[in-house]
């Protein structure tokens, strides 16, 4: 393969038809309240971890919904589970359960891959 000094760049586009929705369907099945997220960002604004490091719970919803699971595994580890987000959420989403379910599903699919 020749090297021309540049390569074909991977598209930034989210290809909705390609993503692996296993994590998403697991989480939504076990915690249906998560469906009602409005992306208001209240959770992220109040987040104790977000005070200390860039950690965006609102984006976790989007990452799941767009199949961006590769970044989830490291992102989700930042959560301290303090629960402030749940007191702020206007839709009463059980966010801590979502975090725990994601952790569980990540493990589950890792072992499936093995």
């Amino acid at each position, binding site marked *: *393969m*020749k090297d*021309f*000094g*540049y*390569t*074909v*760049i991977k*598209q930034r586009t989210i290809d909705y038809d390609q993503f692996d929705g296993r994590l998403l369907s697991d989480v939504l099945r076990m915690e249906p309240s998560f469906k009602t997220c409005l992306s208001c960002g209240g959770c992220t604004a109040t987040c104790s971890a977000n005070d200390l490091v860039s950690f965006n719970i609102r984006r976790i919803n989007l990452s799941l919904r767009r199949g961006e699971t590769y970044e989830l595994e490291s992102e989700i580890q930042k959560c301290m589970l303090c629960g402030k987000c749940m007191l702020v959420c206007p839709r009463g989403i059980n966010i801590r359960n979502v975090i725990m379910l994601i952790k569980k599903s990540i493990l589950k699919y890792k072992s499936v891959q093995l």
Partner: protein
Amino acid sequence: MQNEGKQKIWKDYQKEIADDHYFYVRSCIRQNFFPGSEQTFLKILRAELNKDIFENPHHTTCSGIGYHSDIVPFDTIQTIVARQFALMTEAGYRNLAVSCITSFGIYNEIIETWKEFPNELEKIRNYLKKATGREFKIPQNVSHASDIIYKFREDIFARKKYSLTNHETGKPLKIVEHIGCHYAKMFPGKGVGGAEFPHVLVGMIESWGGEVIDYPERRHCCGFGFRQYLVMSNRGYSISNSKKKFESMEPYRPDAIASNCPGCPMFLDRWQYVIEEMEGKTYGQNGRGIPVLTYEEMAGLVLGYDPWDMGMQMHQTDVEPLLDKMGIEYNPDLKYAGKDGKQIGQVKMAGCKC
């Protein structure tokens, strides 16, 4: 796909194309990329259509590439364009026939600017006068060269030697049309058929017996993008755009790609070779590339011009598969022969497994 819908749009976007007496402005890059195309255009207009088309060797680049690469300021490009118009005015012409899509966009943009901001026009008249002593009139009609071919497509087909059909099966060839972004995306009214469903190449292809492929990434840019190509480390952006288009058109199994822009056929042609070298992937049939044509080359083939005379050996993706399908007779030995019959040497980076 409902054709009536497209036809309605085509009806809505009909532009005026001058009938005769053109002042021809060439593209600066095409003469390197596809050197035979502009010659073919002049030949068709003069020899086949008996039109009066004039060019002045003193005309220069419109500086559009510099302008879009943020090197040439707007005042400068306006003055350069004013000078082209002055050459046209001095030659006694009022109809501009533009070879380049970028220039076509520039001319339209500047003329529209002058309509909106007459002060700007006065300023530029002043600049040109001071710099060169020249004066100019704004062209009555600005047509892209492909508009003119489009206008006379039936006359051309009347003189055809070949049509865009498979000579063995008689079936229409499937052709992807690619319109340069600056043709109508900036001013939909300035392009035949508007920006979303341009008719300029569709009209030619359908009139000449071919079938047009409308694939999902049809509207997408070829990837030239000026800076994306000019800076080598940015070329990944450029090639990714072309690749996106190839992947989208591949399932339709096109026989050729036709374009009306200087840059697009260049990149759609060259990047097929590069992708093959980098990833081993080809998009045409039988492991070969998809031949890429300029509309002049397409017209020339229909009229029976010799492909090597039109410079089609300069394509990096070989055009032979298309020639064979159309049943065009050509001498492979003369592919790389000069005008005097001597071999001028092959293209160093031979294209797409041919």
